[in-house]
């Protein structure tokens, strides 16, 4: 009996579930604030209620994470692996920022160099060569393909 009361909280899943529920509640309230007409809430209201009910049903799994089936447990993730993933996410955000503020070429050059290093390439010559070739091929290739302007600093 004592064993049944032991909690093992999966904070990651708990935070994720809270964020999902918070967004659903915000969206539902936002839609209701626009209009309570059925033409506005026909889908949003029932789906929001459904998700919130399901979230409540899932919630206990966050507190009893050791007892859930193995197939529902998150894959083990080392700190280094987690930091690498976060670094690539940040590099993507940096790429988008640089593309539209400095130039597509500069963004691609930095992103390809940084991400190649994050993913395990340690030879500076190869990192440099790969970044330059990638920048030239992708930026020039897309310039030929798409009609939208692509501001560049060098190319």
């Amino acid at each position, binding site marked *: 009996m004592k064993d049944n009361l032991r909690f093992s909280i999966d904070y990651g899943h708990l935070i994720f579930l809270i964020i999902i529920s918070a967004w659903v509640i915000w969206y539902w309230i936002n839609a209701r604030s626009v209009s309570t007409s059925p*033409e*506005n809430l026909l889908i*949003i209201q029932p789906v929001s209620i459904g998700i919130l009910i399901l979230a409540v049903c899932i919630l206990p799994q966050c507190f009893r994470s050791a007892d859930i089936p193995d197939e529902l447990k998150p894959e083990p993730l080392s700190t280094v692996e987690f930091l690498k993933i976060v670094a690539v*996410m940040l590099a993507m955000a940096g790429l*988008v920022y640089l593309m539209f503020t400095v130039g*597509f070429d500069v963004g691609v050059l930095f992103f390809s160099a940084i991400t190649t290093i994050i993913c395990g390439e340690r030879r500076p010559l190869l990192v440099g060569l790969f970044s330059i070739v990638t920048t030239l091929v992708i930026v020039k290739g897309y310039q030929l393909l*798409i009609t939208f302007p692509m501001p560049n600093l060098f190319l």
Partner: protein
Amino acid sequence: MFDMSALLVALNLIGSSVDTWLWVVPGIAIGLFFGAMPGISITMAMALTLPLTLYMDFLSAIIFLTSVYTGAGYGGSVPAVLINIPGTSAAVATTFDGYPMARKGMHNEALGGALGASVIGSVISYTVLLFLVVPIADLVIKIGPVEMFGVALWGMLMIGSLTGPSMLRGFVAGGLGVLIGTIGMNTVGFIRGTMDIPDLLDGVSPIPALMGLLASSQLLGLVSAKFIIDNENARTLSAAKIMQGFMAVFQHKVTMLRGTIIGIVIGAAPGVGASVSNLLSYSDAKRRSKDPDSFGKGTIEGVIAAESGNSSGEGGSMATTLALGIPGGGATAVILAAFAMHNIVVGPSFIDKSKDMVYVLIINNIAQCFILIPVGLIFIFFASSIVKVPLKYLIPTVLIISIFGCYATDGNTAGAITLCIFSVIGWLMARYHYPPSAMVVGLLLGGMFETEAIKTMQLSAGNMFYFLERPGGVALFILILASTGYSIWKKFQTK
């Protein structure tokens, strides 16, 4: 109906205009290349090649454009299998089993199966079109909001088959997708969830969102891996295995035929298109399969179902275009533009007066499907080399191409930002076993589901049994009930 003398004239015309055939292989090759480029849609590929046809004679121009259409239709499945990025939205369901097959080292078989299903699906759909172009067009005219709502509902049921290990988490993912699909201004004019961002008025752009959910998020999870396929011996390119995959289509002929029928019917409905038929065909195949649990884990039956659904949509879409002058989607709208450039107005009078020309186009499309086999096999052989590229180079390249592809869809920052946000969401969802694929289905169909539900409600004035007055609606709802009932009955039987 079918006109034998017009068919003979058409065959004679095809035989005597050999020079027009020269445009088929370049057209297919261009289509394959553009279709395989993430973010470059079939419509964009055809719009880019449309100016090239200005100086061609009418027949060459149309044959070149339809060849691009045929090539791009299959091209989308290549990145879907190899890197989990659907080259076009019509290849979303192809990723569900194609990519798991690639990760298991069965990329050759998956690409071969996709090619086989695409070719045979298209051939069947164009053959049906040859005999039934007018009846199909008549049927399309009768499609109203009730029938469209039925199609959307049928698609939504797919979420139930994509739930993965936890049904609760699967439905949360699908529901979230539906809600995200309703962001922006709805058909009546209500604006929800935009946070005053003008780019969200038209809703969340589906292509960047699905690329983030399916592809980038997967790549983020591979930053510490060395290759897409762990087993070095499985990273081979094998023509024999590609052919084995191609021939697997004949082992799953019932799945293939059902997917083709779904594709023809859905493809003919204006504005619905191959992205919906791809999803519907996959979900139908999973529901009826003897081994539904193998779906999503890398079964060739899933690839065949998905590809037969989207490729056969081409024939249905072409029927509406030729017989009614209504484009089934963006790509057929470009074909209409090419007709207009040569002062030809398609529609009922075109079918009546130029039946021979209609047959020329259909027969040529059938021939293009057969020519796609060798061209596609060569393309697959080179494209498959991607599995030999170390991930430390592949991840940055694919992420950059994805972001550029998103920029290419609408030419502003919104697409790229959407991709980044949905990459993070997709990675978190995959980590905690909320299937991103269920969210993609909800996202793709959420807007359509809401729009058609509102239109049906307005038309019926709140009468819940209004659909009984529409034979098409009744047929669709019976089909949905029968299909769902059958899968539930089968589930109980296996238990």
